[in-house]
């Protein structure tokens, strides 16, 4: 049909073309919209997932930090409690020892016992020193008692060691002392402090494990007793 088209045919061809153009456009538009909706869903899901994951991590970290802080607080608590108990124990010991220090003041009341004690401590000290000439320092008011004790001590010393010794008594000890003697030998170079105060002091230290057991019970955590 190569003859030229008449008007109706032209019109119909026109309409067909217009319809075609429109149809193509609508299809393309639909494609675009469908794809847009897909992309919408994907993008939204991706963003939500990303962000919620980040938030979860954040709160997990926070939670752990809280846990750690709580544990630290607990531990600090327990420590503080232990320290307070130890402090209370220390207080008891202080009280004990200060009472002891008061009590030894009255040890010198019993004349006979005091005399025996003095003699004993003198011999004890002399046997350590093994000197021939020993000076005894005592309280001023004890001088005569100590002189008597020294006499007895001479004999006891000879008995035990077979050696002779000479004692000289001087009242140089402070009157605040609870009693006892200080032995001095070898030209004032050797000093043995055998006063009641010093003996108590040494005992305080040495008896601590025993005192601990008597006052506070045995230590459940201890394994070695030698």
């Amino acid at each position, binding site marked *: 049909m190569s003859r030229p088209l008449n008007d109706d045919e*032209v019109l119909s061809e*026109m309409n067909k*073309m*217009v319809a075609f*153009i*429109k149809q193509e*456009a609508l299809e*393309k*538009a639909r494609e*675009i*919209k469908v*794809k*847009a*909706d897909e*992309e*919408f869903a994907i*993008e*939204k899901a991706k*963003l*939500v997932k990303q*962000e*919620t994951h980040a*938030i*979860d991590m954040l*709160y997990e970290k*926070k*939670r752990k930090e*809280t846990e750690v802080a*709580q544990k630290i*607080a607990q531990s600090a*608590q*327990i420590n503080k*409690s232990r320290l*307070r*108990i130890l402090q209370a124990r220390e207080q008891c010991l202080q009280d*004990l020892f200060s*009472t*002891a220090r008061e009590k030894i003041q009255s*040890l010198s009341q019993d004349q006979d016992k005091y005399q025996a*004690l003095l003699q*004993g401590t003198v011999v*004890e000290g*002399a*046997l*350590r020193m*093994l000197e021939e000439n020993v000076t005894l320092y005592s309280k001023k008011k004890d001088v005569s008692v100590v002189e008597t004790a020294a006499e007895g001590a001479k004999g006891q010393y000879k008995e035990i*060691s*077979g*050696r002779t010794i000479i004692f000289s008594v001087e009242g140089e000890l402070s009157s605040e002392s609870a009693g006892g003697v200080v032995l001095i030998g070898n030209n004032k170079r050797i000093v043995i402090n055998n006063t009641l105060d010093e*003996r*108590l002091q040494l*005992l*305080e230290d040495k*008896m601590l494990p*025993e*005192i601990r057991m*008597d*006052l*506070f*019970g045995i230590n459940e955590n201890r394994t070695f007793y030698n």
Partner: protein
Amino acid sequence: MSNQSSQGIQTLLEAEKDAASVVQEARQYRTQRLKDARSQASKEVEEYKKQKEEEFKSLESKNAGSTENLQAQVDKETEQKISELKKVYEAHKDAVLDKILDRVTKVNPELHRNLRKLES
């Protein structure tokens, strides 16, 4: 004839224009959709975050409560132990004091074990 063809071309051009605007509208729809995705996602995330924050806060306050309780309990136990301690101390104090005083006065003078008594 040329009038007819130019009219035809005009019609076609208009059809093209309409088509282009339909497609353009679709493209705008797409852009809008992407924006919607972002804003909706952001809103959901906000919600989630708020929820998580509340969970965390309630956990924290529960912890704080239990810590306080624990503290009070530990303190009470400590006080108890200390008063127990003092009671036991008072009960044994005198016995221990006697022991100490006893040892202060106990003397046992002896020769050093490496030495021998001199026989005169």
